[in-house]
């Protein structure tokens, strides 16, 4: 009788430790939010001031108005939404083509697509910049968007999902006289909402996050995205950490909200990225 009891207590201890570990993971975020509502001196106080004495809501408007964060947020949103729409459209089109059609060199094309997973922007940075410059897209929205508009992972994800849809759906529509694009638009797309959801969220997050590409392709202040703005503010205003944290909190809101509302799709998308053929 004593052994099961010991086991049960051991299990409870592990559960408590698991919960305690959350603190380690979330502490920096707690500190960020708490600091964003402190005065400039409370931030570094010792003994540590975990919560502000009076909530300094004014930090937010002060920090955001001093720099053109309205513009930066708008730019980030425009770019992230455009990239997301491009990815949803092109990746599902290509995924459908690879999943349900036979055409010459299909496997070769698909392997070629997968190969681009080995070519992250960090590696093809210089020549990608040169291509974009050749196209005259430096310092434009199109230049910010185009190199991110199709991601091989999205094609892979959509292909895997569409492949499992029954062929009879497509054949029935074809017999009904539906055009090939009509089949894609009216039959395939509505049937792969979960995969589209995962792709949309991952794409939005990755683009919102993108730092390296805007850093290189954009020099006009009017085109800078939020990450550039935040880094620039920190570089110049490095003492005003309470205000930097206020901007950081605002900057993490889109990702945080998306995660909380769509966490199932989000986690599924990440888990799917680990599923190999």
């Amino acid at each position, binding site marked *: 009788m004593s052994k099961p009891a010991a086991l049960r207590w051991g299990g409870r201890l*592990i*559960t408590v430790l*698991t919960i305690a*570990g*959350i603190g380690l*993971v*979330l502490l*920096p*975020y707690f*500190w*960020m939010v708490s*600091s964003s509502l402190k005065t400039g001196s409370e931030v*570094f106080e010792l003994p*540590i001031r975990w919560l502000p004495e009076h909530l300094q809501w004014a930090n937010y408007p002060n920090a955001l108005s001093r720099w053109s964060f309205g513009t930066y947020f708008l730019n980030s949103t425009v770019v992230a939404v455009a990239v997301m729409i491009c990815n949803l459209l092109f990746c599902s*089109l*290509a995924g459908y*083509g*690879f999943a349900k*059609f*036979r*055409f010459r060199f*299909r496997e070769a*094309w698909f392997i070629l697509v997968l190969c*681009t997973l*080995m*070519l992250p922007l*960090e*590696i*093809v*940075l210089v*020549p*990608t910049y*040169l*291509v974009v410059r050749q196209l005259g897209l430096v310092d434009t929205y199109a230049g910010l968007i185009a*190199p991110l*508009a*199709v991601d091989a992972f999205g094609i892979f994800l959509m292909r895997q999902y569409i492949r499992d849809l029954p062929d009879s759906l497509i054949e029935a529509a074809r017999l*009904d006289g539906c055009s*090939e694009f009509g089949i*894609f638009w009216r039959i395939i797309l509505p049937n792969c909402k979960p995969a589209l959801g995962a792709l949309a969220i991952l794409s939005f*997050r990755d683009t919102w996050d993108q*730092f*390296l590409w805007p850093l290189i392709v954009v020099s006009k202040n009017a085109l800078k995205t*939020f*990450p550039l703005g935040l*880094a620039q503010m*920190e*570089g110049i205003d490095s003492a005003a950490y309470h205000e*930097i*944290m206020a901007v950081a909190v605002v*900057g993490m809101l889109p*990702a*945080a909200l998306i*995660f909380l509302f769509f966490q199932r799709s*989000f*986690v599924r998308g*990440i*888990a799917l990225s*680990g599923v*190999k053929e």
Partner: protein
Amino acid sequence: MSLRAGSRAIGDKSRIQSRRFWKGRPFHARLRTAGFLFVLPALLFLLIFKFLPMLDALRLSFFKYDLMSAPVFIGLQNYHTLWNNPLFHQAFWVSAKYMFGVSIPEWILALGLAILLNRRMPGRPLIRLAYFFPIAMSQIVVAMVWKFLYNPLGLVNNLLSYIGIDRVNWLSTEATALPALIAIGIWRGVPLFAVIYLAGLQSIPREYYEAARMDGAGPWQRFIHVTLPLLTPTILFIVVLSLISAMKVFLNPLVMTEGGPNGTTRVLPYFIYDTGFAYFRMGEAAAASMVLFCFVLGLTLIQLRLLRQGGPS
């Protein structure tokens, strides 16, 4: 079904007329064309923004090019310059240290976390939510928060002062700058890889564990003989994925340490960026990109090979 399609086709003559060319071709040829047209837009994008640049990088690595004057062919000179550049050697080793410093703890900690989160316990969905929440956070926010935490007057030093450790200027001391960045990498990577491990764990049929339990296997034996073998593909995937993503790290060194102090955090992507966009030596940067690419290629090939050997099929 076919009857209905037929009657509709008769009623819609003009549509048929306009599509006579299309309809005139054999059914299968039509489908082949349609399939290719579906993948074409994505292929074009990848061709222009991935393959073309890659080929261009290879070409450029044999040229001297500063963006202003025309490129001049100089053969293997760029590779030779790299080989003799102590900064390149330094960047190479910094990248290697960072990669393994981050990845190896990630493999172990993420597996541990996934096993913990796979246990039955009260409030499990909420606990998972809390652990997975940081995955959504943007890198730049993470970089700013940690720069703040590592500040000489910041939270890390304040916490350590409670146990009597003197203040350290983490990001501008040669001995601590890289470990400080490695700690952030681990902290950020573990929840992400735990999600992938967890998906792997959940795909292991429960009966296997019950069978092992019937045979008298304890928790540790079940882990060694059931979990590990069945999780091998996931583990291999994570090993390579974590190495590649650690190899690409760039943002944190750029905004937190600017590669310093004394280049101790200047990783390979940072070196490429500096060479290309600070010194405008595009050819040399492209040559360094090729070296980096060879590593990614090598890792991927190893992964494919291991997957083929270790895979169930």
